[in-house]
Each structure stands twice: as structure tokens, then as C-alpha cells.
């Protein structure tokens, strides 16, 4: 039989890794935000598991019966508030993404970054900054874009 603790720890570990993968690998803003949400879920699970013991019951007295072995209430209380704050952060991030979509018409990070650089260069009246090692075709396209 599989060890319950091992399964739970792998789940927390996996959620954290999937979240980070979403943040670094995807270019779409909403996917990045969902990556943050997954990372948060993994961190919460890890926090709960920090004092996890096999066979512990919930730290609640039901009908006057005190359970023999209760789980630690401290990380549970921490995670309880962390989840609500996570929702607030998610909503704030989504509203920022909404503004980006309204300003640039896209949620693709590469495109947004390109447009922002272009805007800054246009305002300052300079050429788009480009690496001197960039292929000639890219440089020509960038100059054409700023002209």
C-alpha cells in the first residue's frame, strides 16, 4: 500500500512545480496567474503537512467528546486566512490583466512587452533598442516598425 504521507508530499511538491512551470513557461498572462494560484495551493498544502501526523483527527470537540489525538490547529488557522488572501490576490491580478488587455488588445506577454518598448521608444524619439547580434532581418523589421 502506498504511504499516505508520501502521496500528500508529492502532491504539494507537484503543485508547486506545476505552478512555477506555468509562470516561467507560458507567455499568456491568464495562464501565468493560474500558475500563481496553483503555486499557492501547493504552498498551502505544504504548510498544512508541516505538522501532519498519521491518524490525527480534526481539532474540534464534537458533543463533548475530546478526540484522543488531534491535529495541530496552528497551520490550519494560517492556511484558512492564506486561502482568502489568495482569492484577493487572484482578483487583483486578473483586474490588472484586464487593464493590459484593454490597453494593448492582447494578453500575450511577448507581444505586450514589444508594444511597451515600442511606445517608450516612440515617446523618447529613439530607435527600438535591439541587440547588435540580432539578425539583420529582425533589426530592419524593428526599424520599420518605429518609423
Amino acid at each position: 500500500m502506498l504511504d499516505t504521507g508520501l502521496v500528500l508530499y508529492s502532491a504539494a511538491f507537484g503543485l508547486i512545480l506545476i505552478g512555477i512551470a506555468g509562470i516561467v513557461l507560458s507567455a499568456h498572462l491568464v495562464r501565468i496567474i493560474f500558475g500563481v494560484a496553483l503555486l499557492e495551493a501547493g504552498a498551502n498544502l505544504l504548510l498544512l503537512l508541516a505538522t501532519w501526523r498519521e491518524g490525527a483527527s480534526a481539532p474540534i470537540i464534537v458533543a463533548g467528546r475530546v478526540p484522543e489525538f488531534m491535529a495541530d490547529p496552528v497551520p490550519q488557522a494560517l492556511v484558512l486566512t492564506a486561502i482568502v488572501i489568495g482569492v484577493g490576490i487572484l482578483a487583483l491580478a486578473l483586474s490588472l490583466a484586464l487593464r493590459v488587455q484593454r490597453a494593448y488588445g492582447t494578453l500575450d506577454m511577448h507581444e505586450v512587452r514589444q508594444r511597451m518598448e515600442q511606445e517608450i521608444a516612440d515617446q523618447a524619439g529613439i530607435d527600438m533598442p535591439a541587440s547588435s547580434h540580432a539578425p539583420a532581418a529582425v533589426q530592419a523589421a524593428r526599424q520599420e516598425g518605429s518609423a
Partner: protein
Amino acid sequence: MRRLSSALFLLGLGLLIAAIFKGMEFGTVAPIAGQLINSAAAEQVGAANFVTSVVLGYRGFDTLLELTILFTAATAGGLVLGKRAPNAKRDPDAGFILQAGADLLFPLLVVVGVYIILHGHLTPGGGFQGGVILASAFFIPMLARPGTPMSHTAVSTIEGLAGACFIFIGLLAMFDGEAFLTPLMDKGELGALLSAGSLPLLYLAVGLKVGSELAGLLAHLSESEAVD
């Protein structure tokens, strides 16, 4: 290329975390603070749910600060989304099924939300969980009828009053010469609805605050003008 380097970074990070995990002793650590709280909370705070004792009794000040974080997030969300143009087009009302479903669900969700808030010191649940259910109760009608928006003034009034109540109950303890947010009043019988002193009142304030804050934030998000 960028994807490859990101994947390599992930692999390295995974190995690092795995190495840290391997050296830790999981499932065997004695939860010293937790055991102390589990043996003393019923006497000291009088709530049958020890998680509530921790959230509102032992670290009530932290909960106040966490409510502040939520408030900041909600305010910032409103600030970022900005005020809606007065002549902006609203979405049409939803179909019959969603409207009837929203009408049916609204009273049910309000009752469940209030129940969970008021039983926070006895059963799993409390102000945060019940507050989210309350928020969804007020958000579903908004989805069904976008033409009749929610009053933001009412929501922010409830939110402000609930926050002020939380701080006021905390200050009352100081008048008695105790520390800020010390549980007040008679502890009552363990497990009864009217027990644990001022904790149910504090959780009611938390629930109303969380509920109105989230409802306001969701309303802001859903009311922001759509882009073509």
C-alpha cells in the same frame, strides 16, 4: 531556446526542492505549540473548534492584519478597474434558466453562509468560509441580471461597519485592562451556540467584511466594460 532554458531551470529547481525534502523529517515532528493549544484552548477560550480559538483568540491581531490585506487587494482592484463610463453598454440579462436558478439559489446561499459564520466556533467553518458563500450569494444574481447592478455604496458601508466592529470589540478588551482583542464575556458551555464569549461576534464581523469585500470586487470585475 527560452523554453529550453526555462525547462532546465525547472528541472534544477525540482531537484533542489527534492533534496531539501529528503533531508526533512515529515510526519514525525512533534507539534509542540499545537499540543499546548489543544490541551488548553477549551479552558482558555471556550470554543469547541480549536482552529477558531487560534484564528480569533491566540492570533486575533494577525487576523485583523489579514483582513487589512484583503481590504487593500479589494481597494486596489477597484482602483485599477476604475469607474465605469456612465453610458457604457451593459450585458443583456441572462436566460430564464439562469435567472430562475439565481432566484432559487439566493436565499439558500444566504442561509448556508450565515449558518457557517454563526457556527464557526463549533464546527469547521467560520467567517472566512461563510463570507465567501455570502459573496457568491450576491454575485449569482449579478450574473443573471447584469442590467440591475449592485449598490457599491451599500457594500462599502457594510464592509466599513464590519471592520469597525472588529476593531471596536478588540478595543473593548483594552478598556477592561486586557490586551487588544482578548476574548470577552462569559465563555458559556462548551459546544453551545452561545458560547466562547465574543468570538462569534468577531467571526460575524469577519464574515460580513469578507463577504462584502469579495462581492464588491467581483461586481467591479464583472461590471468593467468589455473589450471587443
